[in-house]
């Protein structure tokens, strides 16, 4: 593409990003806001592609736009739309109206000042020559990392410790949701057309997840994108009203949830016992160790995201009986 065309493309992309964010925040209708936010996620995925970040683009399309939107929409289900009166900015008397107005403007001005300060700092940073120490160190050591995709090399080798802690954050978040309540009731069985689509879509999603996991070593992809795609298969099954969505129950579920952190720690500690630094893979084994950790991480991430969509611990008794009971209690579902 020539540079004039690219400038027009950039301008359109930036306008849609800022416009969608503005529109999503300006409305007080929860569903409208969420759907605009999902659209923002998709446009951002295009922007990541434009800025040569295909790994991030894949994750954004699967997680930022897809799963976040699904989570939020599931939470908005059953919410009154339009909102309860205290949330609209209709004030009770003139004094409160004046105060409210002043507060709104003060907050708006402070946010503008925040943006201004950030822009000033950025322009200052951009005016200095950029350091390229880290990218050079990565390309110099990429051959010893066991993979040829530099993003996977950073995530699973050079900064593996961060990724281990990230998986721990995921596990903590899902344990937090478990502590807060039971899973939401399922949906009614889907119609013929959607059910037919699901029969095709789910195997394709599972296959795509496997491909993304394998491709992560040398091309855009990896455990996060694969896990999100696998979770999407479960979400689709759930939306179609299936009671079995690929999640095990009881002990097996707990094993899968902990598999990512567990395998990661096991590899790290084994290496420690063999006299190497924690998570300092020997170059000859690095590729296989990374694939092993990523496989475990993919299952953990998929289970975690799916449990997040369910909104809590699924009941470990007979799934069908529970679903039927819930359907009787709540005829809408």
């Amino acid at each position, binding site marked *: 593409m020539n540079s004039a065309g690219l400038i027009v493309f*950039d301008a359109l992309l*930036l306008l849609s990003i*800022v416009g969608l*964010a*503005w529109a*999503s*925040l300006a409305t*007080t209708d*929860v569903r409208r*806001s*969420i759907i605009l*936010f999902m659209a*923002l996620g998709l446009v951002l995925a295009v*922007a*990541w592609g434009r*800025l*040569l*970040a295909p*790994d*991030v683009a894949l*994750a*954004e399309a699967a*997680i*930022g736009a897809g*799963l*976040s939107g699904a*989570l*939020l929409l599931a*939470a908005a289900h059953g919410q009154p739309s339009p*909102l309860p009166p*205290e*949330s609209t900015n209709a004030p009770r008397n003139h004094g409160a109206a004046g105060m409210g107005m002043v507060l709104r403007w003060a*907050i708006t001005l402070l*946010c503008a000042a925040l*943006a201004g300060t*950030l822009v000033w700092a*950025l322009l200052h940073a*951009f*005016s200095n020559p950029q350091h390229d120490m880290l*990218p050079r160190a*990565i390309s110099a050591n990429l051959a010893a990392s066991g993979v040829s995709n*530099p*993003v996977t090399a*950073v*995530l699973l080798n050079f900064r593996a410790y*961060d990724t281990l802690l*990230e998986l721990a954050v*995921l596990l903590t978040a*899902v344990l*937090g*949701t478990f502590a*807060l*309540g039971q899973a939401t009731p399922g949906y009614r069985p889907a119609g013929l057309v959607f059910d037919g689509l699901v029969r095709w879509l789910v195997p394709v999603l599972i296959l795509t997840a496997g491909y993304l996991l394998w491709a992560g070593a040398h091309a855009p992809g*990896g455990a*996060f994108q694969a896990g999100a795609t696998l979770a999407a298969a479960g979400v689709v099954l759930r939306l179609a009203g299936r009671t079995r969505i690929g999640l095990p129950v009881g002990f097996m579920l707990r094993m899968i949830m902990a598999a990512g952190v567990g395998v990661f720690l096991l590899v790290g500690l084994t290496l420690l016992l063999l006299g190497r630094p924690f998570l300092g893979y020997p170059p000859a084994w690095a590729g296989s160790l990374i694939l092993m950790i990523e496989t475990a991480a993919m299952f953990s*991430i998929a289970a975690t*995201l799916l449990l997040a*969509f369910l*909104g*809590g611990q699924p009941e470990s008794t007979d799934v069908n009986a529970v679903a039927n009971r819930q359907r009787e209690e709540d005829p809408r579902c």
Partner: protein
Amino acid sequence: MLTTQILYALAGCVLLALGVRGALLHASVLLRIVAINIMGAGVFLLLIAVAYRGPGLAADPVPHALVLTGIVVAVSATALALALARRLQVERDDG
């Protein structure tokens, strides 16, 4: 410096500020969670813009890895926030 990099970074700053404003001003919990997600998107845009080195050059993979981590942490934080919001609603309805 690269104009593309600056333009996308500026859009990131705008998204961050809009998100902070929304999170502070909205009364509905769900809208606040959406606003915080938009804040996060602004930070991601900023980081990816900084990583961009120009057409034909490989971008810096470290911010890319950071943002990938960020996206996954953001979705799990969103899930926890939504579970808290749901529980809050239940407590309110009971009380």
